[in-house]
């Protein structure tokens, strides 16, 4: 996966995670962290570096391997005055606490007629491209997308990590915060002080006229790289970074289509049941008259993630695949 470097002063996506959490922990004493190996060990992805040192064991808690207890306890704590930030190490393990995430947390406010509020964040390392195999590489943002009542953040740049973490932790609604494993080493401009990026506001990552590429997290750099290549061929692609799936900023997507009339969605989750299906269906309904060409989706193949690099590249959207698909769509 391509690193996006922006010269001097650039920070990594990885360190921005810890930075984003630390900023909120400084602001608000009710913010507490829990998860496996997040304390003294500072996280298996080194995304909680410095937190234990700065905030100590009463704010940063190591847990047993008990995903249901982690997320369930976070829920109980969120209902009673804390703002827990729970780490689920790999997003694949969301499956282990899916009941709490899909059936408890997003429903309790509604089913109690608004009596309770659940301000929590579940952070997790999502996605493939690192050769971790079928059970540690899934892009499962579409799992969360099937569940009304969860907000879903998936930043693609270091500054967005910090700014969206602020929004997520301050949110009175539960937020699933997808950190992309393939982006941890990537670099970008650091977030300015007090940086807050609201959830639900897409970003035009690159302007263009011929065609709109809608992307999220890891597929943003992929789409940008494809757009860069295509620019050399005279194809001008606009790249929309959705940033969050819920709230979903369709206004920005539809506005872009008013100019480009062509839509390609680039998503890492599998084609079947991917979030791009919902985006496509909204456009095929509300944006039908804007379209000059079929809607295309470049998504992962409908298979588990294979281990070997060369096989994984066949499954996950790559710059090559996106570029090819855009060429075909542009000439439709």
């Amino acid at each position, binding site marked *: 996966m391509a690193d996006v470097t922006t010269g001097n002063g650039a920070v990594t996506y990885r360190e921005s995670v810890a930075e984003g959490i630390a900023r909120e922990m400084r602001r608000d004493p009710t913010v507490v962290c829990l998860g496996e190996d997040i304390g003294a060990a500072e996280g298996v992805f080194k995304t909680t570096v410095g937190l234990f040192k700065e905030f100590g064991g009463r704010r940063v808690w190591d847990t047993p391997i008990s*995903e249901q207890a982690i997320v369930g306890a976070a829920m109980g704590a969120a209902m009673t005055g804390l703002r827990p930030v729970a780490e689920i190490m790999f997003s694949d393990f969301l499956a282990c606490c899916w*009941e709490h995430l899909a059936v408890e947390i997003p429903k*309790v*406010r509604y089913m109690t007629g608004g009596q309770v509020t659940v301000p929590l964040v579940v952070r997790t390392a999502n996605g493939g491209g690192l050769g971790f195999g079928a059970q540690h590489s899934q892009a499962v943002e579409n799992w969360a997308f099937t569940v009304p009542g969860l907000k879903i953040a998936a930043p693609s740049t270091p500054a967005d990590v910090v700014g969206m973490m602020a929004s997520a932790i301050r*949110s009175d609604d539960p937020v699933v915060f997808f950190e992309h494993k393939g982006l941890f080493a990537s670099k970008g401009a650091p977030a300015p002080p007090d940086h807050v990026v609201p959830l639900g506001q897409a970003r035009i990552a690159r302007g263009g006229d011929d065609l709109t590429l809608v992307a999220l997290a890891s597929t943003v750099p992929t789409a940008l790289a494809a757009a860069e290549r295509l620019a050399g061929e005279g194809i001008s692609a606009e790249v929309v970074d959705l940033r969050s799936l819920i709230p*979903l900023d369709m206004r920005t997507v539809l506005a872009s289509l008013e100019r480009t009339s062509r839509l390609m969605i680039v998503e890492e989750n599998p084609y079947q049941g991917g979030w791009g299906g919902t985006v496509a269906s909204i456009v095929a309904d509300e944006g039908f008259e804007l379209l000059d060409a079929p809607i295309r989706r470049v998504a992962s193949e409908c298979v588990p993630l294979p281990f070997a690099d060369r096989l994984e590249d066949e499954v996950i959207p790559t710059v090559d695949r996106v570029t090819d698909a855009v060429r075909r769509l542009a000439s439709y």
Partner: protein
Amino acid sequence: MTTATEPGTLSAAQLLDLYEEMAVIRRTEKAIQDLFLAGFVKGTTHLAAGHEAVAVGASAALRDDDYVFATYRGHHHAIARGATPEECLAELMSRATGVCKAKGGSMHLTKAESHMLGSYAIIGAHLPMAAGAAWSAMLRGTEQVAVAFFGDGATNIGPFHEALNLAAVWKLPVIFVCENNLYMEYTPIASVTAVPNPAADRASAYGLTGEIIDGNDVQVVYDAVLQAARRARAGEGPSVIEARTYRHYGHSRTDPAKYRPEEEVAEWMARDPLTLARDRLTALGVAGEEIDRVDSRARQLVSEAVDAAKAAPEADPAEALTDVWADGSATWRT
């Protein structure tokens, strides 16, 4: 709520209060059964008649600001923690005045303002939540305690294990109260559980001691929970209490519970928590007429609650699209 300070020291007046609460719950459950059969209550119900002493005894031993988490069989806990029979009945009858605006129903009675933080319908789910509430209380330094009530069947599901381990490791002020009514739905609990006492026999797996108590004796429940709460507040960590009890109705809806041996039913019916409490009151010198007065007051209260709930307006369909988010809306896209 009437609270004694030492185990075994409930006065006659206090006990009579608890008796009255139990009587109110019993009447409410009976009313719900009737309303269900008459078509006023839709969906399903899981009546707790027979389990009253657990809810009422435990509740009396707790502070008002302690947290309670219950199951789909949770009417007794909601009422014991301050939900009125009227708002519960209204909920079940799909009225706008329901305690959850008729969005929750029988399985989700919740009274957050009195710290009764919900009834959950997925077995075991709320045990980690109670641990989390206890963790929160500990971190906020409030000396609050959290209690999770659950069935014998819940002891075989994963979250039971994870919650107890986490609570023990973190020494959380949480009390796990198993209402062992001998059945998970239609199946005798012994036939699907590797130990005879599903909760108590497992406490040692978390370095805890498990206590088995008579869940039909409100005084006994009160004492056990009072001591567990005291330990919790003193920083001594979680407790496991297995309260043996029995349900008077079937598992849910119209289940006639034919799978239970007649002698077993008879034995437990003779140990009705209301009968046991009445015996205790009599032993403390309370006159039968006084208890009867309390009984009719309970009957009266519930019958008025039924009328009020029936008379309340139906739930407003517009409510379907509110309360998803903290801003009150259900908006997920622009």
